[in-house]
């Protein structure tokens, strides 16, 4: 059975209120959500609180999730909202300047090898928040651009543009680090 199909069944079981299914979902997503939240929240020690809020929301709202195939988008949107709710409360969200949306081709994007994960992780910390966010979704979920756009709430063109820039900055940053 394909992983996506398994996930769909898992969601249905969660929607039926099955405890074991929730636990399984938690095991699958908690590490990735932790990584994502940390990339957005820049580690103020609130990650655990945010994660707990996310799972509370998942528990309360999963019965409303109609398109079970969109679990990933739905989950990360909740996560994003929780992080940004925190920002709004703390009034510390700073909007960063963004590049214009530009047409890009997929062929000239840098490719990253799994062997470089550690360097990649370090270099990502130096990216702009909006670049770090799309790359995180790209790397940890392999989300299609449209899904990332759905999570972030922008157009697919903006996502494409951000990822294009982000990968180039990342490559440059890694080169600086290795030098």
């Amino acid at each position: 059975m394909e992983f996506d199909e398994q996930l769909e069944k898992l969601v249905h079981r969660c929607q039926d209120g099955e405890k074991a299914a929730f636990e399984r979902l938690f095991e699958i997503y908690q590490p990735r959500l932790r990584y994502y939240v940390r990339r957005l929240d820049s580690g103020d020690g609130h990650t655990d609180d945010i994660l707990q809020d996310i799972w509370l929301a998942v528990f309360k709202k999963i019965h409303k999730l109609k398109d079970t195939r969109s679990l990933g988008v739905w989950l990360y949107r909740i996560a994003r909202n929780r992080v940004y709710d925190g920002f709004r409360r703390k009034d510390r969200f700073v909007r960063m300047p963004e590049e214009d949306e530009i047409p890009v081709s997929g062929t000239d994007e840098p490719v990253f090898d799994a062997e470089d994960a550690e360097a990649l992780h370090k270099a990502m910390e130096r990216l702009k928040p909006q670049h770090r966010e799309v790359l995180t979704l790209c790397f940890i979920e392999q989300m299609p651009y449209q899904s990332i756009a759905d999570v972030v709430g922008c157009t697919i063109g903006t996502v494409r543009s951000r990822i294009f820039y982000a990968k180039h900055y990342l490559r440059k940053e890694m080169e600086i680090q290795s030098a």
Partner: protein
Amino acid sequence: MHNNDKKLLNGLLKADGIDPNGVSNDERAVFREMLDEQLKSKQSKSDSRVKSRFKYFKSPFKMRKMGTKNTYDAGIKSGLKPEIWRIIMKSRITKLAAAAMIFIAILLGINSFPGSSSSLVFADIIQPILNAKSASMDMLIGPKESQVKIHDDILGSRIRRTVSNVKGTDIIIDLEEMKMLALSHTEKTATTVKLEGLGNIPNYLKLLQDTVVRMQDAEEFKVENQGLKSIDGHDYVVFVAVGGNDTITIWCDPKTALPVRIKQKTPNMLIICDNLQFDIAFDESKFSMDVPEGYTVADAGGIDFKKGSESGFIESLRIWAEIIEDGHFPDSINLQDIVKIGPKFEKGMKRAGFTKEQSAQSAMKFGQGIVFIRFFKGQGQWHYAGKGVELGDSSRPIFWYQPKDSETWRVIYGDLTVEDVAPENLPE
């Protein structure tokens, strides 16, 4: 997942100190405890709150007609008047001022949409809009006989706005880049304005989506299902939700399960969003920030709302007292008061003998400064006590607030001087 992708994922997680193979025993234990609590809570509520929630929301559109049919009364008894929009449309600069004022007023309005303070649950009624990528709506302000209609088309972070009494002008707002482009089709001028310092402002659609997300977590709410009501010969299911001091009325199309009208009432204002439509296949060029060919670009500079802060707000108070209220401070300074000041503003500027340029500049300063309240950065609440105070009265505090990370409060007096005051010495 491809092998390299999986390795990359695991590598990134490890680099961040996260075990890619699962969660720690502590994490698992906390989650289980939370899960047990939620399951138990759900069970115990299933006969009361949860059932009533389903009663109201689960299948509202399968209901048969209930209650009496009412003809929808679009009249708003809020006393809001639209004159301000007309007054500030006398020159190119005033058009810019108008655009800014429209933008500010609506921002003030939509951002007061309940969410942070209210505790409602809207569940299935507005669930469909969560996935909407685009929307179209009319925002109605003021009583029916002099109502201003602001039409917004929304696509992602961009809004194309027209205002019923600002003929021949379209405003395109890019909320991601925080830019505004005002296009006067009659004069063929394009005015670009950089809106700095406004922070992260969602459009109404995004705001509604965020609100829904937050509301779904709420534990307490009060909703009344008013059954089917009629607007212009069409039946809609009407829900009235009350949370704290806020009331939201939603008219839903029984066939599509989508809201077509939302009325939002708070102590400070009343806004009606009408003709709501979602997921419209807009032509993206309609939202372009590029200046159309043949249009003259007007150099308007930018509006830096960061500069507004306290000094800008004090300037707004001065204009309000000196020009609008003829020497004394207004009774209150909420949104409704801001939108109502149009006629007084006009009279005041005539009285002061202002030129059009001076009038426009005053309008701009006023608009910018007043944003200080909306984007209030202090701790807790601000307090206004200017009712009955004459401009220049140094003995009467009219406004006080606590700046962020400050132990003392800032108190503004009737002569518009400011003083740092310890909490124990604050005005009562």
